[in-house]
């Protein structure tokens, strides 16, 4: 089963290296990993997508939680989430195919962000499946370049996010002494 993990970590040098090194050392296979700022200054938010048995994913969560700079890890796979990915796709476009491509972009609610003499660059945001569909339809035209961000995810409002309903949005919601694993991962 595919799992989505959300991890919050201190924004310090080398922290990304600690996380990626852990995956490599423990032989975990990561499908995508994205990282950026969270709403709390000094705290980065990482979304990790990995395929694996529940037992393995449970280990990933526990091992990640042991990293001193990682403050919070949550498996959101079973929770209602908003999931998005952004992709930039540069597709070959001759004058006779340009309108067809533009029409596809419109159907997918994607945007054309750059127009060149022989290509168009399309920006699409959405769940990965939607991005996959558009990529599939564009491929026959010739995709010259593509950049995908990987998944970012957020638990929907009003759902139990595993943090006693406090959300992550304030400093006080940062767990102080909660045995994270005991609560959040079924043993």
């Amino acid at each position, binding site marked *: 089963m595919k799992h989505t993990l959300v991890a919050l970590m201190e924004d310090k040098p080398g922290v990304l290296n600690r996380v990626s090194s852990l995956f490599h*050392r423990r032989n975990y296979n990561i499908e995508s990993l994205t990282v950026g700022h969270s709403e709390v200054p000094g705290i980065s938010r990482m979304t990790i997508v990995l395929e694996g048995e529940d037992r393995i994913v*449970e*280990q990933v969560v526990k091992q990640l939680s042991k990293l*001193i700079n990682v403050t919070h890890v949550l498996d959101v796979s079973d929770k209602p989430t908003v999931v998005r990915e952004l992709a930039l796709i540069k597709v070959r476009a001759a004058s006779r195919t340009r309108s067809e491509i533009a029409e596809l972009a419109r159907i997918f609610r994607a945007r054309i962000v750059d127009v060149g003499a022989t290509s168009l660059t399309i920006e699409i945001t959405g769940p990965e499946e939607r991005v996959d569909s558009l990529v599939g339809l564009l491929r026959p035209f010739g995709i010259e370049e593509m950049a995908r961000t990987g998944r970012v995810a957020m638990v929907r409002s009003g759902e139990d996010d595993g943090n006693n309903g406090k959300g992550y949005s304030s400093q006080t919601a940062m767990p102080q002494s*909660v*045995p994270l694993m005991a609560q959040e991962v079924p043993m």
Partner: protein
Amino acid sequence: MRLTGAQAVWESLVREGVETIFGVPGGAVLPLYHALADYPIHHVLVRHEQAAAHAADGYARATGKVGVCIATSGPGATNLVTGLATAYMDSSPVVAFTGQVPSPVIGTDAFQEVHVTGITLPITKHNYLVTHAQELPTVIKEAFYIARTGRPGPVLIDISKDAQIAEIEYAYPDEVHLPGYRLPQGDFSSQVQEAAQMLNEARRPVIIAGHGVILSGTEDQLVELAEKGHIPVVATLLGIGAMPDEHPLCLGMGGMHGQGHANMALAEADLVLSLGSRFDDRFTGPPHTFAPLARIIHVDVDPAEIGKNVPADLAVIGDLKDVLPALTPLVEARDRSAWLARIREWREESAQLDILAQETDDLIPQYVVRQIWHATQGNAIMVSDVGQNQMWEAQYYVHRRRRGLISSGGLGTMGFALPAAIGAQMGLRDEQVWVIAGDGGFQMTIQELATIAQEQIPLKIAILNNGYLGMVRQWQEFFFERRYSGSRLSGPDFAQVARAYGIPGLTIREKSEVVPAITQAVTSDGPMLLDFHIVPEENVYPMVAPGSAIYNMIRRPKTVQNGEEE
């Protein structure tokens, strides 16, 4: 108070109660060494940085305090790696300091520059690169806290040379702020109740005593629990000493070279209560074959250990210091005489197969270890190396005292014993510390004889010299067609080498010389090396073949003559 970064390091160490450190100076730590002379910290100069890490580890294991080592940048730092990995695998609290090239040239491949925080990332509990002197007090406070709390482990602090020189206004923090570091404080009372109920219902329970019992200092509570419930206890290699070996409920070590009766007890147990053990493969065999009839209760301070190797039916996450006092009162006395009688039968079988029950004039290693036990009355701190010598020590020295065995369990680091024993002896000056090593492992850190001589460390060293990398040879005998590829080993005259370092050395070739030699070592005030030329092809029994269940043991053949089994 105005201090340089270097002074801030030592000031902080004094405040952490550090009295002894182990290290080797070099270019990138010269400011640190320059300042060291003004502080009441004894620096033990070792001859190779690997030994500094092992010594700090041995010091920590013997005393329960954090061990400290120091090395320069580049090769000094990389030489620490084996020692840090050893400490990490065995959850030993060590703080390592390394010098780093000045911060303006970090990343330029400067002389003796290496990315030590990157290299040690997977073998430390945490590490730091400090390039600003004002960070030092906080970082050191955190490092000691992280190293000794929860599941202990090594922490490395890499300090650029300019940060050692810069001046700061020094203040040592009273507390740490580590939002991502949480110790288990959860309410485990319902799990403890369930555990007690499972124990009370069990007819054939066994306790596994792991290293965690020793690390948490709960040896007395373990005995109390075992005695109250009449529950036999099997130790892991690093759990040896958690319960006195002579205690009637103590079955000794289990696992690949465990006691037959200990492995059989695990095979037939209907309940296993693991206290601070991580179900290492050398202890369990293939996980699905381990304790096949038992429900398993796993108590550990580290949640990541639960279910990692062997699935647990019940997990209790917490420090044994908290868990055992909650559990024992709920455990009821049960009549388990039938179960204990069954174990006694296996124990008698083990005794019959014991080589010491057989007549032989050969100089066998088991006899040497047993005589060291007699001479020290089981009260020495034994520091074993890795391989056959380690297993013979574990099987034939009857450990009486807590923290009485120090050995590299997880990483299995040959060359560990001598430097680790230096650390142990520096921590416990009035105790007798013995090294048990093979001729192979001893040659990996033999240079530390110079450290012993310089520091006048009264270590007693027993080399079980069989001219082989013995455990390799044994595996080749059993599983690789007796082809002793690469395992035949020559060595120096170890007694002469010792004497060259200024340490008395004896060579023992006959069984009759064993007791006088050991007596001489035990009664001498200083260090002594005993080189025992043992039967070359003696094997460790029982042995569980890799991939086999631990109850499928290769037992000792009945008779032994001239080292050849028939």
